[in-house]
């Protein structure tokens, strides 16, 4: 009763549609450039690892992955740690301006990055954070913090209020209750929120590119630059692309059981 006729076929076709372009990228990353340009082959006939080797040995390439991961992790940590208490407050209390504040936060999640690119550039240059991972991590907070608050609020609301009251009766102070009791209870929610912060910070390019020049350049920006400079090194570009997919795939694997719930932002 849950499903519709021909569901295996529909699902199969859709998965093929999703995987085919990715397969083509993987396929290309193992080909030599002459094979890519000269013939149309469905799998690499002369498989090579030269593109991957180049990325892992050339610092200007692999430092991009390190830079990206650096600001993504920083951003996730900042977002979750400021969002947790706020999520608790929104879930449990009513206070002056709470609804307006919630809407304001939500509206920031929707703000176009293009609007903020230039002012962020000015702001972070002025305070000397330009071209550091901190600049990108803080800039990404504008959409990740509201999202984290939104998701975590749903999960905190799922914890019965009696647990708070019992803990306070037992003499727990607020910080102790928060760390010892609440955080373990919503651990899966924190995982989901972290996943989303990671995801949106990892995929964003416009702000990350605008706020960095040399030292903190993300891998995504390095890809675009090198392509225009070296006249289309397709194999290298494909290999770099494949390597950007891997961290995401690993993260999905860890949270696969919570994905669906997290996508409904904890409030189904």
């Amino acid at each position, binding site marked *: 009763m*849950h499903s519709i006729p021909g569901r295996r076929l529909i699902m199969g076709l859709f998965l093929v549609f999703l995987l085919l372009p990715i397969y083509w990228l993987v396929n290309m990353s193992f080909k030599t450039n002459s094979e890519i*340009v000269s013939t149309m082959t469905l799998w690499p006939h002369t498989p090579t690892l030269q593109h991957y080797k180049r990325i892992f040995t050339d610092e200007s390439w692999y430092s991009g992955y390190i830079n990206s991961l650096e600001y993504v992790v920083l951003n996730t940590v900042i977002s979750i740690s400021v969002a947790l208490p706020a999520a608790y407050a929104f879930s449990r209390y009513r*206070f002056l301006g709470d609804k307006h504040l919630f809407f304001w936060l939500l509206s920031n999640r929707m703000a176009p990055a*293009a609007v903020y690119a230039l002012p962020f550039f000015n702001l972070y240059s002025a305070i000397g954070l330009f071209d550091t991972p901190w600049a990108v991590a803080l800039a990404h907070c504008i959409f990740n913090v509201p999202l984290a608050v939104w998701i975590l609020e749903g999960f905190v609301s799922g914890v019965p209020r009696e647990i708070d009251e019992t803990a306070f009766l037992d003499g727990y102070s607020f910080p102790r209750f928060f760390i010892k009791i609440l955080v373990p209870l919503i651990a899966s929610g924190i995982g989901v929120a972290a996943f989303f912060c990671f995801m949106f910070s990892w995929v964003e390019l416009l702000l990350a590119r605008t706020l960095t020049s040399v030292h903190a350049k993300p891998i995504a920006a390095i890809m675009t630059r090198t392509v225009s400079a070296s006249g289309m090194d397709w194999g290298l570009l494909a290999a770099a692309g494949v390597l950007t997919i891997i961290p995401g795939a690993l993260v999905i694997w860890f949270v696969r059981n919570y994905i669906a719930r997290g996508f409904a932002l904890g409030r189904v």
Partner: protein
Amino acid sequence: MDKTVNQKAWFLVLPVFLVVAFSAVLPLMTVVNYSMQDTFGNNQFFWNGVGWFKELLDPSTDLGGRFLASLGRNLFFSMVILAIEVPLGIVVALSMPREGWTVAACLIILALPLLIPWNVVGTIWQIFGRPDIGLLGYVLNAIGIDYNYVSNEVDAWLTVIVMDVWHWTSLVALLCYAGLKSIPDAYYQAAQIDGASRWAVFKAIQLPKMNRVLLIAVLLRFMDSFMIYTEPFVVTGGGPGNSTTFVSIELVKIALGQFDLGKAAALSLVYNLIILIVCWIFYTVMTNAGVERKVQAESEPAVEPKPSAALKPVPALKPKEGVA
């Protein structure tokens, strides 16, 4: 679940408030400042009042023409992808396997496009669609369809739309799947006993249960497609001509390309205002839906204790007895 009034809760919200204010309010102030001024370079600014805004909303000027054209294109794009992704997402969610390892496998593959950096999504489709080295472009041309997204406007549009469907349908599907998972089995059993058709089950049980997640899906998809930048920029660069130049691409061109601060700032503010209004409408609808649901939930238990599902056929039989 009545919340208690507690003004001290502000202390818990304060960190979020500070972080977001730092990265939202401060930059926005700069934008407002720029939008009212003109410059001859050299950091000399002078007052321009609402001049930029007038120019922006007047289609006869260069700036206004470009802005309104890109806005129109962007709205059309958002409508098209919503019209494709929402029904497709629902169908995919309904096609999810019920249990076993295939569920996890499908979830992972579905989520995969969402975690690919946006410029790599662009790169993937740029390569995939090329007539010389891409599978899609090669196959299409081989079967006699003249397809080239670099020079043909229609092909460029189709590529950008298919790319967005590829990229984001999973989000709608996963949201709907989450909504479907929350339907208790008893509902389906009751429907089966009543002999409801599959379509009736969808309309009476599944769709209402997905209401809320669908609202979130439409909101997220509309907003994200309305500020789309990276993917079309990588694939088409806004071309051929200006045919796939969306608002964000236009804005970045003016702000970082030409460094026209005043114009860019005015555009930003109008752009932001549109987003804010749409966001507010959705928020109001969503909050109202939440209140309705609560009211329903409070009145429901009396009407519908679960075991009565087994009793349902009895009233259905009674009229027959009457006939006999």
